[in-house]
């Protein structure tokens, strides 16, 4: 099928080349009619691995403290790229990676949860920018994605879709993973193809609990075996996108124990150790300088002795978690090897979609969502909350959703400054990449220093497969790739550097690279601080981006950005500033800080606040799709059928004990439990048991005022008669959970009230006929606007943390 026209997709049906007479007499079939397009001869299998939220200095392959033997064996048989770049944020890098185009140009100036009305921030990939996995599939590849997705808008993650922005819509034949920005590794709320399948049953197995990284590898291997069982030759493309090492940092204790005591020296010393190893390995130049610690990070020596074990444990768990990711990628590689296809598989393994994440704030957190909800907790408070849920020995287990300190992330980004969200500096934008493909790469163990970017990966893959970029897909003319192939660097260390220019922008932090020069313009805001005071200087009409301090680096002489040359080269600064604005306009990065528009009152139309009804046993409503019950009054009512013997169990529950609510029946009594991020836990219970028969129950929350995190009074009703009450002083202002879903008639995954944990999911033993959420509108239009703004502030804040 070498004569196929692959420039227009889907590949057109070829004309019938046989003979069809009135009868079979003399008729000749054309067997190609029932075939399918095949890739060009020699097209290899492709395995693309993307690790989440990790830094240049994390894996041992690049001098880091985390043992990554599988990454190293791939590097020793392939190539290390030490000047590969990403966008400094999750979804934007993934969008750039899978479309071959700059992230803003495909609507991903921010994360998938945050759609706004500016073209670069819709979280909705335009149809004239078809993702290249679809191009592979249309050209005869079997394609599958496993793990983190984070490219489906928040409001489209249910059975009503639409599904064009789910993984299948991006060209993957098969998907097993989670749609959001993160997931518990013990208790993820998963999707398979176009269905949310919830938390795997293995979560309930105490002896052999489910663990997503293991399951991802299992599912990948199972899929590969299935493909090969059907077709021995058809090439595959696997996108293996780990939830690791994004928070929550979940891993079994034996993995963390491997690192016990290895971080007692603290983050300052750790950076020095990593830096020395990086030089020893040759992954950074011998004359590179180690960038200093910014004042935003405390010196390790300033950490009170009584808290050092708490901080060290955070990094031990993170290291074990990452080590395990390497192990599971290794299992997939071994499975390909067992198929006898490793040498014909192009492996591209990128260690981090952005620099290591500083979103744990300085303290780290027992619950990653405390930062997103703006809850200020000291490190002593965080430690005590960790103790509440099992102590630092349980950090990484099922009872917490932990995130480490921003200072550990900074160490993980050695030798660079800053980290995730900081698009202006290499700590956020430069990550390790290893490429292995023995069929083409014969110089095993070599280093490549070609300046490259996530947008170049897709064009490189198409280049080596011989598949052209299509001019049209589904009849729609395609915008050309912004990326360029670096395939010639696979075989030639002296190959020219094709990427000589690239803009970067994340959360207003921006950079312009051209011919070795790097202009860095970071907003003075500390990335993990989103208080009103911190945001106020960036309000419309207040912020002058050209007044932000500019730094200038010449990377050929300064690998790490250790020497700011801005004062010596004002013309170059100005030239690159102007070039940035031109590129930002060209690729739809404007307006800057569109991600934060909700904080400044720029909001979409107020949605319909009609009651939301769930009939039957609706389960696994994604956390971003539950009724907007935050920051104001609301009620939850349920029509029940209670047997004569009584009933118990959960009527409706969202998320878990680290943030969520449950309306349930204990000992025959209606009970409401509300977890304010695991910090405050409230429980109210009826004074009398439920009657049998048709029963209507209701929980009403009367807010003190329509304001973020409002307190208020809870009243429980049975058949419209008050039967219990209580007060909740603090409620969740933004979002209960990053990943845990809402269920009718049970509490899937981690439970909200731990008193029924041993009976989870504690399904209701009667019948839940209907659950209705009434998000009561407040009478004053002014209040309506305030509530609406608060809801979108929350949305934006969530976006800041993914």
């Amino acid at each position: 099928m070498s004569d196929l026209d692959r420039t227009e997709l889907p590949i057109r049906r070829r004309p019938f080349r046989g003979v069809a007479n009135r009868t079979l007499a003399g008729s000749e079939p054309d067997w190609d009619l029932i075939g399918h397009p095949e890739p060009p001869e020699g097209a290899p299998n492709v395995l693309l691995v993307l690790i989440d939220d990790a830094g240049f200095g994390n894996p041992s392959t690049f001098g880091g403290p985390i043992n990554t033997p599988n990454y190293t064996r791939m590097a020793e048989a392939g190539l290390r790229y030490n000047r590969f770049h990403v966008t400094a944020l999750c979804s934007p890098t993934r969008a750039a990676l899978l479309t071959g185009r700059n992230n803003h140009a495909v609507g991903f100036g921010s994360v998938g949860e945050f759609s706004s009305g500016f073209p670069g921030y819709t979280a909705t990939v335009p149809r004239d920018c078809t993702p290249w996995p679809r191009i592979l599939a249309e050209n005869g590849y079997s394609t599958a994605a496993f793990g983190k997705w984070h490219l489906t808008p928040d409001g489209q993650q249910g059975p009503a879709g639409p599904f064009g922005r789910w993984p299948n819509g991006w060209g993957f034949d098969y998907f097993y993973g989670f749609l959001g920005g993160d997931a518990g590794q013990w208790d993820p709320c998963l999707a398979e193809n176009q269905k949310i399948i919830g938390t795997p049953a293995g979560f309930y197995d105490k002896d052999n609990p489910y663990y997503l990284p293991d399951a991802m590898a299992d599912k990948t291997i199972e899929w590969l075996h299935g493909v090969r069982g059907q077709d021995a030759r058809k090439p595959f493309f696997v996108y293996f996108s780990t939830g690791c090492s994004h928070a929550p940092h979940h891993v079994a204790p034996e993995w963390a124990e491997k690192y016990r005591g290895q971080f007692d020296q603290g983050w300052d010393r750790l950076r020095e150790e990593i830096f020395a190893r990086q030089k020893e390995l040759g992954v950074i130049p011998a004359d590179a300088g180690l960038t200093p610690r910014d004042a935003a990070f405390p010196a390790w020596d300033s950490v009170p002795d009584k808290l050092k074990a708490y901080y060290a444990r955070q990094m031990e768990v993170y290291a074990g978690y990452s080590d395990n990711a390497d192990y599971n990628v290794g299992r997939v590689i071994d499975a390909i090897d067992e198929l006898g296809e490793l040498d014909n598989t192009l492996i591209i393994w990128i260690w981090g979609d952005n620099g290591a994440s500083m979103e744990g704030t300085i303290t780290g957190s027992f619950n990653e969502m405390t930062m997103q909800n703006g809850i200020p907790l000291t490190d002593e408070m965080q430690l005590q909350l960790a103790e509440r849920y099992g102590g630092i020995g349980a950090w990484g287990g099922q009872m917490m959703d932990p995130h480490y300190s921003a200072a550990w992330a900074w160490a993980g980004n050695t030798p660079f400054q800053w980290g995730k969200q900081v698009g202006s500096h290499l700590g956020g934008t430069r990550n390790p990449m290893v490429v292995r493909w023995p069929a083409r790469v014969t110089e095993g163990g070599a280093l490549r220093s070609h300046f490259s970017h996530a947008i170049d990966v897709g064009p490189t893959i198409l280049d080596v497969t011989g598949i052209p970029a299509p001019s049209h897909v589904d009849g729609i003319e395609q915008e050309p790739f912004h990326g360029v192939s670096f395939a010639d660097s696979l075989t030639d260390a002296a190959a020219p550097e094709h990427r000589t220019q690239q803009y970067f922008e994340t959360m207003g932090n921006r950079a312009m690279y051209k011919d070795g020069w790097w202009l860095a313009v970071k907003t003075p805001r500390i990335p993990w601080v989103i208080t009103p005071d911190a945001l106020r200087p960036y309000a419309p009409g207040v912020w002058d981006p050209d007044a932000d301090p500019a730094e200038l680096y010449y990377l050929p002489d300064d690998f790490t950005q250790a020497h700011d040359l801005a004062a010596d080269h004002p013309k170059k600064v100005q030239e690159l500033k102007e070039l940035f604005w031109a590129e930002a306009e060209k690729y739809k990065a404007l307006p800057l800080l569109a991600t934060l528009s909700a904080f400044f009152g720029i909001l979409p139309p107020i949605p319909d606040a009609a009651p939301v009804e769930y009939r039957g046993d609706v389960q696994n409503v994604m956390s971003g799709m539950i009724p907007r019950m935050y920051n104001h009054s609301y009620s939850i009512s349920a029509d029940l059928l209670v047997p004569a013997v009584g009933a118990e169990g959960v009527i409706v529950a969202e998320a878990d004990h680290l943030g969520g609510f449950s309306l349930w029946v204990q000992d025959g009594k209606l009970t409401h439990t509300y977890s304010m991020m695991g910090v405050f836990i409230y429980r109210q219970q009826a004074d009398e048991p439920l009657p049998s028969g048709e029963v209507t129950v209701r929980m009403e929350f009367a807010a003190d005022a329509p304001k973020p995190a409002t307190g208020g009074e809870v009243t429980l009703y049975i058949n419209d008669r008050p039967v219990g009450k209580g007060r909740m002083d603090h409620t969740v202002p933004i979002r209960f959970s990053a990943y845990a879903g809402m269920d009718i008639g049970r509490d899937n995954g981690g439970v909200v009230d731990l008193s029924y944990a041993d009976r989870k999911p504690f399904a209701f033993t009667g019948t839940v006929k209907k659950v209705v959420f009434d998000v009561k509108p407040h009478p004053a239009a002014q209040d309506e606007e305030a509530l609406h703004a608060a809801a979108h502030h929350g949305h934006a804040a969530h976006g800041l943390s993914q």
Partner: protein
Amino acid sequence: MKFDDETTDVLIGGYLSADAARDDYEAVLASGGYLHGAVVVSKDLKGNLSVEQTDHMVREGAAGLGAIGFAVGLFAPPLLAATAVGAVIGAGAGKLLHHRTASKLEEQAGATIPLGGAGLIVAYPHSAAAKVEPAVTRAVQKVVGEAEGHHVQALKGALADAQRKMSETGT
């Protein structure tokens, strides 16, 4: 030492975990400072209450700590100054701090300790403050009240003073 010879201090510490409260309780007992009594109370996430006390008042022939409502009005854990979106997360700790007369420590603590929270109350003569107070290092909220007078009245006065201060610091 006679109870009414000098000012009586009452320290209240608030905690987010039972472990932290117990650490301070044991540190206070080991501080070497003279104590009239100390109580550590905690409530686990299922609602089970734990109370431990050392009641020197009984030894002195006075009514026990429980008899004066010692654990009443501990606190709701403080913190939470502001959210990302600028709201002050409401007050409320103060309303739990009304001093009521109650009979048993368990009943008192059960009514005031939030799920997952813990509290420590220590009573001591002011002369012991230099030893006792530094031993309390893990409280996320700590206040000291004081009062003079006859021993039970002094203790009640100091407790009320501490509870008032706790109410003022609760945010």
